[in-house]
């Protein structure tokens, strides 16, 4: 009988022997936070991840949200994109939600770099640059947030647990102050020539700084920084404006592209999706290998160009389709529609284009310089010189001399519309200058009415943020 009593003991002994191993999960195919931020390559990898939201943003929504709202292009009325054009969106609109999300993803990743990289033991020069790149990126993301949503939360620390996810809003001027501080630092610490093509250089930070000052209403600082960058002669306009957007000439175009979303059709990277959007249905691969036919230009915008303006060649009124048939304005495919041919990639991988999307280019800086100078000092020769540089490259005559300050500024804004069309810029020019309600007059047969209201000055904060962030209130106009 004695053996019987021993048996449970044996059983327990066996059981505990077998459970000697821990129940902790053993990671194989990923790493844990405690294993990271130790080496120089960790620091680089963390920084790279902070760049990704740029391509996440601009592969679609970064352009769609502002551009479909403005007066240059409109979407085919599917999957709710038309809400942006007819101003029927509310806080639940997914495209607006994605815009917000990509920007804050970027902020969080930049914060992780800024917090963790200082303790990495590595080359100090490069470490300083990495931190400056992260500050540039954080400034860039906040600039996108503040111009799109107005008052937004300033997150200075990365998210580590569920408890630290909620945060209140800050005033727009505080957001500008915060991002300007980041950019000022980045101007100082970034190299004039970046380590790799595609990274932010000191000039990118300075150009963005000029633009941020312009938006924030500090025209003196805007003019100072724009001029300083122009006079540095680090960048030059591409002689032919048509070459700017050709993916095969993207390295040459870096002379003018101060900072761009670097798209790639390579596996594991993000391609520029909008090549397929602008490609009309059944179009040849001149546009893109995959054609969605999902966005077109307004006829009124096409007509606003001087016919000799080279930039008008980036738009078209007809195309030869894949079966060799000429599709013109009389065809149902192109009725009331202008083709946007700024972003073409015949070698795209599906709808993934190689095109780099301009976030800041020298022509923009010229026009910032012109506007800031005019707002600060009136339409001086400096202001005229800046705008005319851009006009000459486009092949159109210099601006009429002797304009009043207001007329000159109006001319700069018009020039910006032509020069920077479809580059996610126009809507912000319209909103920062209070002219956005004019889009109510930009109509066609698809959009016979566009009832824009005062509340559309800023987009609503996404509903998911409102639902989950108890410390944050919706923009007053959207309550």
């Amino acid at each position, binding site marked *: 009988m004695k053996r*019987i009593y021993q*048996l449970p003991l044996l059983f327990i002994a*066996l*059981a505990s022997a*077998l*459970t000697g191993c821990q*129940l*902790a*999960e053993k*990671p*194989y*195919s990923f*790493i*844990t*936070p405690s294993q*990271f931020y130790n080496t120089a390559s960790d620091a680089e*990898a*963390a*920084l*790279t*991840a*902070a*760049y*990704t939201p*740029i*391509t996440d943003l601009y592969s679609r929504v970064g352009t769609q949200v502002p551009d479909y709202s403005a007066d240059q292009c409109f979407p085919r*009325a*599917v999957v709710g994109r*038309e809400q942006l054009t007819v101003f029927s969106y509310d806080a*639940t609109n*997914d495209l607006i939600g994605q815009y*917000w*999300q990509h920007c*804050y993803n970027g*902020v969080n*990743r930049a914060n992780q770099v800024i917090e963790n990289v200082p303790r990495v033991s590595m080359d100090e020069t490069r470490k300083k640059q990495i931190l400056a790149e992260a500050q540039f990126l954080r400034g860039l993301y906040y600039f996108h947030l503040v111009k799109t949503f107005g008052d937004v939360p300033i*997150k200075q620390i990365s998210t580590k*647990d*569920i408890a630290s*996810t909620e945060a209140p809003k800050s005033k727009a001027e505080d957001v500008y102050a915060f991002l300007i501080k980041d950019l000022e630092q980045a101007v100082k610490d970034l190299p004039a020539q970046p380590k*790799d*093509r*595609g990274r932010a250089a000191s000039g990118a930070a300075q150009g963005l700084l000029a633009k941020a000052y312009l938006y924030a209403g500090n025209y003196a600082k805007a003019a100072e920084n724009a001029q300083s960058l122009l006079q540095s002669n680090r960048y030059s306009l591409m002689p032919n404006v048509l070459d700017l957007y050709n993916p095969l000439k993207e390295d040459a175009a870096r002379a003018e592209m101060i900072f761009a979303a*670097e798209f790639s059709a*390579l*596996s*594991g*990277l993000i391609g520029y999706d909008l090549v397929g959007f602008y490609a009309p*249905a059944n179009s040849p691969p001149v546009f893109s*290998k995959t054609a*969605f*036919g999902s966005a077109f230009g307004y006829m009124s915008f096409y007509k606003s160009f001087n016919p000799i303006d080279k930039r008008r060649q980036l738009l078209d009124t007809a195309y030869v389709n894949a*079966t060799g048939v000429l599709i013109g304005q009389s065809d149902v*495919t192109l009725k009331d529609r202008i083709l946007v041919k700024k972003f073409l990639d015949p070698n795209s991988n599906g709808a993934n284009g190689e095109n780099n999307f301009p976030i800041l280019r020298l022509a923009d800086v010229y026009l910032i310089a012109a506007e800031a100078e005019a707002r600060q000092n009136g339409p001086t020769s400096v202001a005229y010189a800046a705008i005319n540089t851009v006009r000459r490259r486009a092949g159109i005559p210099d601006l009429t001399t002797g304009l009043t300050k207001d007329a000159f500024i109006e001319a700069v804004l018009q020039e910006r519309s032509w020069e920077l069309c479809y580059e996610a810029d126009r809507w912000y020019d319209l909103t920062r200058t209070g002219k956005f309600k004019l889009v109510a007059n930009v109509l066609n047969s*698809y959009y016979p009415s566009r009832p824009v209201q005062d509340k559309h000055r800023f987009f609503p904060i996404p509903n*998911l*943020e409102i*639902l*989950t*962030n108890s410390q944050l209130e919706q923009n007053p106009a959207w309550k």
Partner: protein
Amino acid sequence: MDLFTAFASREKSRWIIGFMLLLSLHCQAQSGRSVTLKGVVTSADTRQGIPGANIIVKNTQIGATTNAEGAFVLSVPEGTRVVTVSYIGYQTKDVSIVGQNNVNIVLETDDRSLNEVVVVGYGTVKKSDLTGAVSSVKAAELKQTPIANFVQGLQARASGVQVTQNSGAPGGTISVRIRGNSSISGSSEPLYVVDGFPISGNDNPLAGGGSSFGTDNGNRLSVLSTLNPNDIESIEVLKDASATAIYGTRGANGVVLITTKRGKTGQTRVTYEGYYGQQQIRRMLPLMNATQFAQYENEISGQTLYPNPEQLGAGTDWQSYIFQKGGMQNHQLSVSGGTDKSLFNVSLNYFDQDGIIINSNFKRGSVRVNLDNTISKNFKIGTSLTYTYSQNNGAVTSTLADAGAGGIVISALAAPPTVSPYDAQGNPTIFSGRYIDINNPISVATNVLNRNTTRRFLGNIFADWTIIDGLTYRASFGGDLVNDTRDSYVNRLVRTGAQVNGIGGKGNTYSNTFLHESLLNYQKSFGVHNLALTGVFSTQSQLQTSDASTGQTFPNDLVLNDNLSQASIVTISSNKQSWRLDSYTGRINYNYKSKYLLTLTGRVDGSSRFGANNKYGFFPSVAGAWRVSEEKFMQGQQVVSDLKLRASFGITGNADIPLYNSLSRLNSVGNYNFNNTRNIGILAANIANPDLRWEKSAQTDLGVDIGLLNNRVQLTADVYIKKTSDLLLSRAIPLSSGFGSVFGNFGGLENRGIELSLNVGVLNGPLKWDISGNISANRNKLTLIDGKRTEIIPGDGGGSVAAFSNTSLLRIGAPIGSFYGYYFDGIYQTGDNIPTGKTAGNIRYRDLNGDGVISAADQDIIGNPNPNYYFGLTNNLKFKGFDFSLFIQGVQGNQLFNVARLRLESASGGSNQYVTVVDRWTPSNPSNRYQKASIGQRVSQSDFQIEDGSFVRFKNATLGYTFPQIGKINWLRNSRVYVSANNFVTITKYTGYDPEVNTAGQNNLNLGVDNIGYPVAKSFIAGLQLTF
């Protein structure tokens, strides 16, 4: 002894009981004059001797037991007239022996015996002593329909078990819901336990790497199709918490216990079973013919694309080119037998099924070796080992990764009937012009390699040690080694392949699972008190590795995927993961005079999947039963032969949650392009949740078992309520945190239902007629999301549920899977008040919120994919050598979302449409159902595509004949031939191919979605069973 024979399967327990009786009978003192009676006891079913049967002189204790061949010798007192012959599982029989000294006794099987042994978790129990809700399905029922997968055989056989063939592809994915959907982010599939080895019924998410065209859920293979159904002796489905709590964190979705056949003492038997059959599509879908299509194309393009539509006639019927009559055959050869010391059952199986879509098939070869060996009086060892090799050539019915182009079936529906199927060279025509976006379906079927090869070893060895009488210890060790290889290639004759000059891939998944279990059993009777104790320690772990390579842009299509280094662009990936589960389990069974029964179980599970703060969970259950029929006041009446009331309550868990979700995982998901090369960015893709734990289900069950008229009528009824809390969901967190959601235990849901099963022996004379049926109803509703939101609608983005797509929403109070969309309100007619952006002929959706604008806010719940009830009904008739059975299945009150209609009734041009679109709106035909033809328009998801999915199906009719013994040929012991028709009549209003469809596979949310997958077939087979 028969109260609780935990180690033995049914056969062994019979043997042991016989053995014990034999021992006791030897001790009987014999007195008086006696004569010798000899005889053989055989089974009416198998015509084989029954070993261990008891022969007792009626009303005495004088008796004997049959030997391994079923023979017996008994000394009976002179003048004995009647002996009683009995054996578990057979009807007890009184046999007159007057004037005989050599008798042949044939026993009929008894399906209604309460002495029958039922397999439960970690043991067996006599049916009469069962306190939980358990349904049993016998091998004969399981194999009645031709099946690739045993789960198909469970369909409509057990109450509370809803089996859906998600895909009709041979070996295709199946989902099983026991008492409803009890998870959203985890799996809702039950746990399967094969001869004590727990395996998962989840479609392997890692398998399918190396695909050239994505891995659509509906296109998956069922992992369970790698097990040979012909080896199965019985299946028990554990449903209530009393039965399932012993499986702890894996019990919440129910447990399916599979017991395979083992050897029996007696002569060696060689059995061959085989069938051959043909399957075909139930119906073709009505499409526009070439004339109608040409007219439609002319109208939509505003051009004369086809000058003379009328002359085109019917055109190409694409469906007829892709569907075929698919042959299927199954051959099983098994040899079994044994002696007192050792038993064996060895089987070989070959199964081969061609699909009803050309070039699709599934083949499986398997071998099984089940051994039992008694080494000494108290020491036994045994094995259950099986190896399977299966190969599936899958039809690509999922969407190919290419805008516009689709899989075989959708392409056949969309392909222009005006184009001939083959070009002048005899190759499938490549569509051009307006139809360039559509794949030629013949080409997709014949020019796409899509092969899955699975090798699986599943084995268990065990040793039993009887320490003292009543106390036994079993140690078992098992392994489940699965290797899955995926081969794929799309050549240049298919648009997807042509665009990139060939795309191919290869993927391997290796999944190794090991199990150790230690069981202690003790049982003893103290007078009227009967006690059985079980203690189990078990540890199971799995290591899974996978790798996949895909290549595109090949110099030619010659090497397919066998030399991916020829590809210009190669993508590779690999993954490795593991989990571990440690468990401590105990059970107490107590009964008083077999009248008042009590079962207590408890299990502690420790799982690696859980967060650091919650590694161990405890899962208790309690159940009681009262056999009212054993009470004195029930004696003396003949009507109620059995009456048992059951009640149980318990907590079970669901730990089938994605691995590593409690940890913050850093991965290379944030890459960026510097210098035109890919730079790897590493970032934390999620926030850690150290509190992550199992989903918890608390289930209450009340049941009654009633037997009437000596159990000729048996009724089992159960009502239950299962409340699941700590439901795993992604909870939305502020997007400004840089994360969209955190995965954790936030939600809740509830299932409640009623189940009835009835078994009636209508006739038991020369004509034997049994009816059995079951009917179940379950109601499911979501009770909690995350404490913040009351609903999650499709397209919420960031914080939505994993794998959430566009068909259903989650709303508190509504059933899981509720379809979401607009309400169709006819067509705008000329002269109507038509809103901006719409014209006459466009679809009108109902303005639910009455704001005058049709917007996303006008969407609501438009349908429910969950049935009101489902049932199965079987009639079995036997007359002389003939047997006939009719099996009917029904599902009622569910709705299906016929997604294909979004495309096939869009009237947007460039592809064929359902013939209904002929009735589209034109100024002269003001249809109120089908919108006008207009290029590029899309149709929104609305109740227009929601259809009644109810059906009643004649699932099987079998007519068989068992030959009487032919002359003196005694080497052929039994021979039966049969023919059967399967799915041969389906009564439904559903307009798709078949109402049994679930394109999203095992997904918990997108239920009842018909996105044109692989249709379920009907079949006719003829078969043969021979025993030597």
